[in-house]
């Protein structure tokens, strides 16, 4: 049976729909945005989908990717309709209503986010009408249509964010709080280091004198923080494209300005520049300089110590690197490697399938890795092709450094290179609060890269 699809709610960026087959997947489907909900403290996703859908998405993200764990309300906790033949044939709205009702009896959350899988989106369940029924009763519940065929968990993430803003936060006409910022950056769970990175970014922004709605992870105050979104002075998008749509939506909805900085900063050089840009936008230049000076003092003390290793390690350091990662980390790591380590890119592959209309801007961001280094990127999601491209890259006479995922373990072994796992799936690292962002993350990243190098050598 061929089913006529409903148009999706709202005007969201189209997922790239031209994708061919994918070997060794590097992201999950839009339903994976259940973990976007789970990343908000005391928020629980309700998954309206087939019996294996939720399990697959959260297992991949929380289990096979740094062993992050699924979170308080994700992983095995999240309710699921586990849709069966009956829901396919007769529709699943009744089942969903029953499930939400039961969830309210059993679960103790500040917010429920209904996310849908392929089945309801294909058979045409009117999920909105079910959820609106609960909303009218004052239940904190929103819904987002995230059927797997609609896109990946990156686009699903923005659908969920918009659902919360439109259905929970709603209109706002009150005053703005000068110095408060909403942060839109890494994709929770998909990025292996999101918790530590968001913590570091929050620390940096607070350091220069801002107050931060970090919105996701251990440092977020939860749903209250979401309700405060419209009060912020501005939105900060710290990523090449993810979050941009959200910021535009907020601009339209609340007249809230946004600052878009494509580079998640790693290391003192980039971090200082980014913080100064933010400080100028927010009008907190003075406090920013004091903070930057203190951070740089510490950072460069360590860097000076590290330089003894970097300048005289005897057994071969890599000189060129390849990356296969999502746009945000690919750009962040490339900038750090080029500008602050003096490495050259041998192959740059973007794996998160950004919307077509944003690709030119992403390409442009990589063109200026440094004043004298331009990076050419390729958008590929199929690991077989990615590995072919890295195999044919030229790493000079030195062992390759590969920033990638666990899919690259065999490749790195074959190329006698060094693999630093930074992208989904990172299945050979246990990651808790570690961060690779900012000042502290830059040092941790140096430790990780060069520990990988020296420990492989005998």
């Amino acid at each position: 049976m061929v089913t006529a699809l409903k148009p999706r709610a709202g005007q969201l960026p189209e997922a790239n729909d031209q994708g061919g087959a994918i070997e060794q997947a590097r992201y999950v489907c839009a339903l994976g945005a259940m973990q976007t909900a789970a990343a908000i403290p005391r928020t629980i996703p309700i998954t309206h989908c087939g019996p294996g859908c939720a399990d697959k998405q959260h297992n991949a993200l929380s289990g096979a990717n740094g062993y992050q764990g699924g979170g308080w309300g994700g992983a095995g906790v999240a309710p699921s309709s586990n849709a069966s033949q009956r829901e396919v044939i007769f529709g699943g709205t009744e089942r969903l209503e029953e499930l939400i009702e039961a969830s309210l009896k059993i679960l103790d959350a500040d917010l429920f986010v209904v996310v849908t899988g392929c089945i309801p989106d294909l058979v045409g369940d009117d999920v909105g009408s079910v959820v609106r029924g609960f909303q009218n009763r004052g239940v904190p519940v929103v819904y987002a249509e995230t059927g797997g065929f609609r896109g990946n968990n990156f686009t699903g993430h923005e659908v969920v964010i918009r659902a919360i803003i439109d259905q929970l936060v709603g209109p706002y006409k009150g005053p703005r709080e000068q110095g408060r910022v909403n942060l839109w950056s890494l994709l929770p769970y998909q990025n292996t280091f999101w918790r530590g990175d968001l913590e570091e970014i929050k620390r940096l922004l607070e350091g220069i004198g801002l107050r931060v709605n970090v919105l996701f992870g251990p440092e977020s105050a939860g749903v209250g923080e979401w309700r405060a979104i419209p009060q912020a002075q501005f939105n900060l998008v710290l990523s090449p494209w993810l979050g941009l749509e959200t910021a535009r939506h907020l601009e339209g909805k609340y007249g809230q300005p946004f600052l878009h900085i494509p580079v998640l900063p790693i290391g003192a050089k980039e971090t200082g520049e980014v913080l100064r840009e933010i400080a100028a936008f927010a009008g907190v230049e003075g406090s920013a300089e004091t903070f930057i000076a203190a951070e740089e003092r510490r950072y460069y003390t360590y860097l000076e110590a590290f330089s003894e290793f970097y300048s005289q390690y005897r057994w071969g350091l890599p000189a060129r690197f390849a990356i296969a990662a999502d746009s945000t980390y690919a750009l962040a790591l490339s900038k750090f490697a080029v500008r602050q380590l003096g490495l050259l890119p041998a192959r740059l592959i973007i794996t998160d399938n950004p919307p077509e209309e944003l690709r030119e801007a992403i390409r442009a961001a990589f063109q200026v890795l440094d004043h004298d280094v331009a990076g050419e990127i390729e958008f590929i999601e199929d690991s077989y092709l990615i590995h072919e491209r890295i195999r044919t890259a030229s790493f000079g006479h030195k062992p390759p450094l590969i920033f990638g995922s666990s899919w690259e373990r065999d490749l790195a072994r074959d190329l006698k290179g060094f693999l630093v796992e930074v992208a989904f799936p990172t299945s050979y690292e246990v990651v808790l609060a570690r961060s690779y962002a900012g000042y502290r993350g830059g040092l941790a990243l140096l430790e990780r890269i060069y520990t990988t190098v020296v420990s492989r050598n005998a």
Partner: protein
Amino acid sequence: MAINLRTAAVETREQRLGTIIGWDEGSAAALAEQSDFSRGCGTGCGPGTKGSRICELQSPFTQGGSCSEQVVQGQAGSILDAVLIQHSPIGCAANQAANNTNFRNTLARRGMQVRNITALSTNLTERDMVYGGVEKLQATIRDAYQRHHPRAVFIATSCATGIIGDDVETAAREVEEEIGIPVVPIFCEGFKSKHWSTGFDAIQHGILRQIVRKNPTRRQEDLVNIVILSGTDVYTPMLAELGLRANLVVNLATVEQLEEMSEAAASVSFCYTLASYFTAALQQEFGVPEVKAPQPYGFAGTDAWLRAIAKATNREEVTEAYIAREHARVKPIVAELREQLQGLRGYVAMGASFAHGVVVVLRELGIEVPGTLVFHHDPTYDSGSPERDTLGHLVDATGDVNLFTVGIRQHYQFYNLLQRVHPDFVVIRHGGLSPLAARLGLPSLQLGDASFPVGYQGIINLGAEILAVRGQRKFHEDLAAHTSLPYRRSWLEQSDPFALARTVAG
């Protein structure tokens, strides 16, 4: 009941065996009693009528489960010289990553070169939902063939392709003719069965239809098919003692190994939930005898299992000698373990027949097992052999389990179940429940390596492992003192895991 290999899709477990996923009426004996056509009825009885007699609880509240496709993915993705194609949106391929770590770790344990799985998704998008995904599927099969030169291609279908009605069977047949290797569609849409174990049947169905050698020209009298899951190879050394060779399927098998299943002297397994369909079909279609015995857990089970293999392969004498040697080796160690484990209480939560086996081993180690959760219950297996009544064997061999529950791996129910019995540790295999136990201060014994509790050595393995994980309780107790559960107080005070289900039913 006859297995029907003519249709492309396998019949679901609930259709064939009367499988249920919700039951909480009391003890294991009571459930075994309700499944009485398996207890002593014999091969003549068909499922369906009596199976439906077991009253199944259905809760309005359900947490994310698992699906048949997930099982097919794990099984087909592990065949060494085949390629798996998931004909699906990308989400169905999400846990390729998790499968890969399983695959790699198992390769390492089996002493093979570690490498990635070979699995592709057709990555269906909105456009494909409208226009259909058949062309993309065929292109992907051709790509996979060009890239990897496999000896077979498996296609796992998905909910989406099931709903939009892609003719996967025809698509596969067309490319199969073109490339000259088997292209095997496995129909495993998640919504079609309430329990994921139908996925085992689905992949076995496909292998039986398109891979297994139809008219074997030889019989390999020393070859025994052993249906396994990922884990250490404990079978090859064990069977070598009997002068037999183990043909381990499906996990990490080659296509050649699957082909020659029809040439084997017998088929057996450590888990009849897993092997039900395969062993019955091999007997029905190719005359390869299904070994009729309890599963190989604990002394009695392993003795009987080995003897049944011996009988099927005419190796009684050498087998008895081996059994005697192993008893002599293992019994003193087990005696010592029993002392160290004295007074401990364990709770088992896993797939049905595997759980039955593990309870047996725990009890042979002197551990009290007041309660057990199985994720589903098959009132019978496909061959209907009463010798394979694993639940009955558990009760007969080691006594009843007072609080025996069938429930499909629900985090929230696991809380109530543990509150009922307050065990010292839980034994687990699937992901999702241990974290809850952890937040309650309980350590989990993880049977990730499916071979771990099997056979005589399995008794030792399990005993030593319990001693090891017992220590972890300090971690969990520390955590428990500083964490909260996402359930309402009213639910946390609820002692009946099926309270909601019974309210609805009542």
